[in-house]
């Protein structure tokens, strides 16, 4: 059984850049593999180990500009390949940038349909940058497949998949017929860092980038693009307590906390 895994080249939220007026400089924030997508790749590789088949990673570039980002999304996909995916297919096209969830879902489902037949499509529960947690479901409906979200455990058995969903108060186990889409949580596994050898091998694996017309799409209309993005400002005192030794530092800190009225002695 072949498995598709969806991987996002997400804005690296640890590297947010803004100008002096607090406007976020989206184009200068580097892209990185979205954290939970690493779990999805690792899970796909685990299932492949049990059942055989190929693991194919898919992505659509959602942040522009395309020429600058083309290399970055390739690096992200090389990481997925180093984690064990067998090949990678991506769409890089300025016509959809910046993309919204509806256009990303439309593009990804077309890309998947064009590439092959997959018994299982895995994705992270949500992306690191936008966190809207609705893409896996939208893709499933576009493909006409059943879907389950927030999986903490996946068992594939005789043409069906048993998914343990990690809900706030309970674990809900659901069963769906294949082919199906499943989104995974960060707790489903602990992906290992790829070894140097795996990283080197990833460069020999197939990687293909398409434009939307190459996958048979016209420029789609965005259903709900964001109108603005604002930086959340944090204003803290940022005072580093210094001293001759740790005793002095501890005393100064305690005095500060008493002064602030947050510690009573």
């Amino acid at each position, binding site marked *: 059984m072949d498995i598709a895994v969806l991987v996002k080249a997400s*804005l690296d*939220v*640890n590297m*947010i850049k803004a100008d002096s007026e607090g406007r*976020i400089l989206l184009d200068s924030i580097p892209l990185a593999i979205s954290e939970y997508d690493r779990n999805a790749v690792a899970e796909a590789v685990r299932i492949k180990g049990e059942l055989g088949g190929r693991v194919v990673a898919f992505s659509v570039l959602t942040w522009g500009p395309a020429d600058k980002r083309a290399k970055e999304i390739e690096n992200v996909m090389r990481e997925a390949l180093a984690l064990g995916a067998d090949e990678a297919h991506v769409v890089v096209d300025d016509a959809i940038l910046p993309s919204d969830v*509806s256009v990303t879902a439309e593009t990804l489902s077309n890309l998947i349909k064009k590439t092959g037949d997959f018994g299982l499509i895995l994705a992270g529960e949500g992306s*690191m*940058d*936008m*966190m*809207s*947690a*609705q893409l896996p*479901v*939208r893709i*499933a409906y*576009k493909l006409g497949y*059943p*879907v*389950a*979200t927030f999986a903490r455990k996946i068992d594939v058995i005789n043409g069906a998949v048993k998914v*343990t*969903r990690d*809900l*706030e108060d*309970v*674990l*809900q*186990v*659901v*069963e*769906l*017929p294949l082919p199906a889409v499943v989104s995974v949580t*960060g*707790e489903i596994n*602990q992906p290992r860092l790829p070894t140097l050898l795996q990283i080197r091998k990833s460069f020999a694996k197939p990687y293909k980038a398409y434009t939307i017309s190459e996958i048979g799409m016209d420029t789609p209309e965005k259903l*709900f693009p*964001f*109108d*603005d*993005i*604002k930086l*959340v400002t*944090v204003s*803290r*005192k*940022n005072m*580093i*307590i210094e001293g001759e030794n*740790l005793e002095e*530092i*501890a005393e100064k*800190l*305690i005095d*500060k*906390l008493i002064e*602030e*009225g*947050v510690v009573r*002695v």
Partner: protein
Amino acid sequence: MKALVIGNKTSHLVDGLGFIQALSSETGVSIEAYGLLYGGGAEETKGFTKIFSMPEASPEAVANTVSKLIEKMTLEMVIAPAEKNGTEILSRVASVYDMPMITEVSGISKAGENTYLERAIMGGRATALYRFKTPMAVTVPAKKFKASESGATPEFEELQVIDGVTKVVEVLPKEKGAVDLEAADVIVGVGRGFKAKDDLAMAFELAELLDGEVGCSRPVAADFKWLGEDRWIGISGKKIRGKLYIAVGISGAPQHIMAASDTKVIVAVNKDKNAPIFTFSDYGVVADLYQFLPVFIKKLKEKKGV
């Protein structure tokens, strides 16, 4: 305009009603509220015209049932709790009707003629604004929008479940923690800077001295399982809003620290002077926690005379 609020608890209906009231007062559009409870039974919630009920079912079956209702009643908005089930159900409904969906709305604002729905993105470091238009699906966090429950008593109607291919085969309990971080005044947060579970004893001792609780970063709860999920602070865990947060051996990833942004004073203890946590804190101590915590605890005890 008609809006449907879905949920499996009465509080979900109240949260959704609060959002509707806030939106209505921002836009000046009057919105008629309908409710749908899946499982949990229908209690009286004033402010709704009608409350539908259906037995507990898979997210797919709930979504099918809601989708049918939308078609029958020409509903223009659907609102669900910003929880995992609510998110899946609403994503399904939004997919059926190709509707915009705003996940976990955090605020409503106005600029000129337009009303915008806001939500946190980028691990909480930024807010995205989406122009409000209908039809639209929205998930709403608990207690974010206060509702006034007044008006007529709703009618009730039971709905037939429209099943799908998803079978719920089992529901297992999850270990429940007893710690309520959201209500704690003082929290000592522990992160991957701790090398072993036993070392957390220092943090517990410090928390006890300060009449506080111990919280943690995601890896400590999710990967190491040293502490329960009830102590997990962050956008996917608990939001904290006490007087003092002392983050020890925590790097300051936005997904963690932004959930502490309503805390009055934040202290960071980290051996790396370039750790991002220092930009999010009021007071910083650059030191090895294994050396600093024992001294800090000793000095606190001296000051307190214990």
